[in-house]
C-alpha cells in the first residue's frame, strides 16, 4: 500500500500522520524549522516563501490555539489565510463533507489545514482533494496531530541535542490522545532507545506495546531516570465515570508533582501540549518550575508549522 502522504519521488505531499514517515523527512522538517525560529525573533517577522498562496484553515472542531499558530505560521510565510469554522452539527444537516471539500477546492486553495473530530478525516480529505492541494492534519479524532508531535521533537532536540541516548515518558490519557500517538511514532522513528507510557489500564489503547513502548502503571517506577516527561491533557469528560473515579484520584496517581519529578534525571525537561489542567495532570509547581519547557513549545510550534508549510507548498 503506497504511503498516501508521499508523492512519486518520496517527498512529502501531505502531512497526515508521523507514522510511516522516514526518519530523514522528520529530521529535514526539524532542520528547516531552525531558521524559521529565528525569523520569529526579528523586527519584520515575514518571509515571502508562500506569497500568493492560499491557506485554508478548515476547523470542523473548535480550536483556538492550534488554529492561531497555524494562522501565524502561514502569515509569516506571506500566505493568504482564510479561517473556516465549520461546525460538525451544521454539516450533518446539510452539505456532505465531500461537497464541502469540492467547493473549497474550487476556490483555488493551495493548502488545507484540517481539524476534525473523526479519526482518519485528514486521510479522507487528502484522498478527495484536487492533486495540487496539500493537506496538513491539525488533529483528527484520536488518531494524529503530527505538527504537535514534530514541535515536541523540536523542543526535545533543542534541549537534549541527541535523541539516541534518551529515556522519554509519555504520561496520562494515551487512549484518547492524538498527540500521544504522534509523539510515540516520532520518538521511535527518531531513534529514542526507550519510550515509556505511564497510565492506568483504562487509558491505554489495546496492544500499545506494539508501538514500541514500555508500559508502566506506577508513575514513580515509570519516571525513574527519564530525560523527558511529556504530560497530556486529560479531557473533562474523561475525568469521572467508568474510566477514572475523579480528577483528584487521577492527580494522586498520575499527576506530575515535584516529588515524582525528583525521580527523573536531574536535567529532565517537562512538556505539555496545552491547555493545562493544573492540579489534574500537572502540579503548578512543576508547570511553572525550572524543568518546564511548555512556553518554548508554543514558540517552536510556529517555526515547525512554517517549516511544514514551506516544505509542502514550496516544493
Amino acid at each position, binding site marked *: 500500500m503506497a504511503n498516501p502522504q508521499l508523492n512519486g519521488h518520496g517527498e512529502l505531499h501531505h502531512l497526515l500522520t508521523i507514522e510511516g514517515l522516514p526518519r530523514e523527512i522528520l529530521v529535514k522538517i526539524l532542520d528547516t524549522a531552525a531558521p524559521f525560529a529565528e525569523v520569529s525573533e526579528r523586527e519584520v517577522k515575514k518571509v515571502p516563501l508562500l506569497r500568493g498562496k492560499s491557506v485554508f484553515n478548515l476547523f470542523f472542531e473548535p480550536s483556538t490555539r492550534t488554529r492561531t499558530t497555524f494562522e501565524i505560521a502561514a502569515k509569516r510565510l506571506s500566505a493568504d489565510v482564510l479561517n473556516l469554522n465549520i461546525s460538525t452539527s451544521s454539516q450533518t444537516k446539510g452539505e456532505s*463533507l*465531500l461537497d464541502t471539500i469540492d467547493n473549497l477546492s474550487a476556490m483555488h486553495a493551495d493548502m488545507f489545514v484540517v481539524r476534525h473530530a473523526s*479519526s482518519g478525516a485528514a486521510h479522507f480529505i487528502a484522498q478527495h482533494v484536487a492533486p495540487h492541494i496539500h493537506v496538513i492534519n491539525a488533529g483528527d*479524532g484520536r*488518531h494524529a496531530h503530527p505538527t504537535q508531535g514534530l514541535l515536541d521533537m523540536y523542543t526535545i532536540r533543542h534541549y537534549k541535542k541527541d535523541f539516541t541516548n534518551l529515556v522519554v515518558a509519555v504520561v496520562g490519557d494515551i487512549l484518547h490522545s492524538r498527540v500521544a500517538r504522534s509523539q510515540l511514532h516520532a520518538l521511535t522513528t527518531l531513534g529514542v532507545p526507550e519510550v515509556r507510557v505511564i497510565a492506568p489500564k483504562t487509558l491505554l*489503547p489495546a496492544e*500499545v506495546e506494539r*508501538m514500541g513502548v514500555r508500559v508502566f502503571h506506577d508513575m514513580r517506577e515509570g519516571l525513574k531516570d527519564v530525560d523527558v516527561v511529556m504530560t497530556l491533557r486529560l479531557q473533562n469528560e474523561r475525568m469521572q465515570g467508568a474510566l477514572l473515579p475523579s480528577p483528584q484520584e487521577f492527580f494522586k496517581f498520575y499527576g506530575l508533582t515535584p516529588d515524582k519529578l525528583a525521580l527523573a534525571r536531574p536535567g529532565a525537561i517537562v512538556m505539555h501540549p496545552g491547555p493545562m489542567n493544573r492540579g489534574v495532570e500537572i502540579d503548578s509547581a512543576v508547570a511553572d518550575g525550572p524543568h518546564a519547557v511548555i512556553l518554548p513549545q508554543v514558540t517552536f510550534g510556529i517555526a515547525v508549522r512554517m517549516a511544514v508549510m514551506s516544505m509542502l507548498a514550496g516544493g
Partner: protein
Amino acid sequence: MKIHIRNGRVLDPARHIDARQDVFIAAGKIVALGAGPDGFHANRVIDAEGLVVCPGLVDLAARLREPGFEYRATLESEMEAAVAGGITSLACPPDTDPPLDEPGLVEMLKYRARGLNRAKLYPIGALTAGLAGERLTEMGELTESGCVAFGQATRPILDTQVLLRALQYAATFDYPVWLFPQDPFLGRGGVAHDGEVAGRLGLAGIPASAETVRLATLLQLARDTGVRLHVTRITTAAGAAMIADARDQGVKVSCDVSINHLHLTEMDIGYFDSHAHLAPPLRTRRDRDALRQALADGKIDALCSDHTPVDDDAKQLPFAEAEAGATGLELLLPLTLKWGAELKLPLARTVARITCDPARVLGLEAGTLTAGACADLCLFDPQVHTRVTREALRSQGKNTPFLGYELPGQVRYTLVDGHVVFEARR
C-alpha cells in the same frame, strides 16, 4: 419446460457425488441423473462442458433493503444480483424499516419476491416488536406468513429476562432463533476490532470479549431452554471454539461466518478504508485463520454473504462515520471457491458450505440434486477468474473491500424451479 443439462461435472455435496453426469429436469423438478427417463424430449439442452453443475446456493444473510431503504437497493436489483451470483434461496434479516414484526409486512415481501421469479426468499421474523428487545412478536402468525426463524439482526435484547422468555417461547414451538453474538455494552461505540490497528489509528474498539461474553449468555440460555439457536456472523477463534464445545455437549446450536471475515483482517483497514468498516468488525489474522479452519472442519456450519448494500453517500465518509456493511451476493461463490482452493479442500466439501449446509440450518429441502428435488441449480465455470469492479456488480450496493480482487468462478446459468433465471452473456 423440460431441460437436459449435459456433459457437466455434477456436484451434489449432500450425497458426496462429484461425477460427470447429465441432469434431466421437468415440471420444476429434477427427474433423473445420468440417463434420461424413457421418452424424455428436452425443450432445451444446455451444454455444460467444462462447467460445474451444483445445487443453487443458499445464502443465510442478505439485506435486500425492502421495505424502507429502497434508495439503497430494491428487491428487483438485489434479486437480480442474487441469481447472477448463483443464489437460489436466501434468508433476509428483519432489520428493515419497519422491521419484519408483522405478518402483513412479511406477506407483502414474500408476494413481491414471488412476482419477480428470481431467488426464493426466506424472511427471518423479528423476535421482539420493533426489534426493541421488550415485547415478543406473534411468532405463530409470523410463521404462518412465511418466517422460517426469528431474530434481532444486529439489534440487542438488553434485558436478559426478555431474552430468556423469548428463547423459552420459541422453544415451545420449536421455532429456530438466530442471534448476533455481540455484547451491546462492550461493543458500544466501537467501529473496529479493539487491537493493534484500532489502537494505532485511534479508532474506538470492539474487544473480542464482546463476542465471547455474549456467547456465554446465549449458549447457557440455549442449554437451559432447549431452543434451536443459530449464531450469526461469528468473528473470533474463541467464539468458534465455544460453539463447538457447546455442540459437543448437546446444545442445539449452529453458526455461520461471512465471506468478509473468512478472508480479511483488521489489517485490511489500511489507511482508514471505509470499505473495511463492517459490523461485526474484522478481527485478527489468528481469528481469521481459525475461522477458515473451523469452516473446513464443519465446526462452523455455513458461509454467508452478509450482503449489506450501502450507498456511496453513506460510505464515502471518514471511517467511523461511514456506515458499516458491504455488498456480497455476487461474491459468495467466488470467495467460497477462493477459500476452498487456499485450504486445498475437495470441491464438494467447499460447495457444501454454501448449499446443503445452510439449507440444513434453514430447514429447507433445497441444496441437493436428488431426483424429485426442486430444480434449483447453479452452473459455473471454475476456471474463469474475473475482477471485482463496481460496473460488473448488479447489486445496487457497489461497496466492498474486495474491489479490484481477481476471483475464481463465473456463474453461467442459474435455475430456479426448472426455469433459467440467469444466463451469463458470452
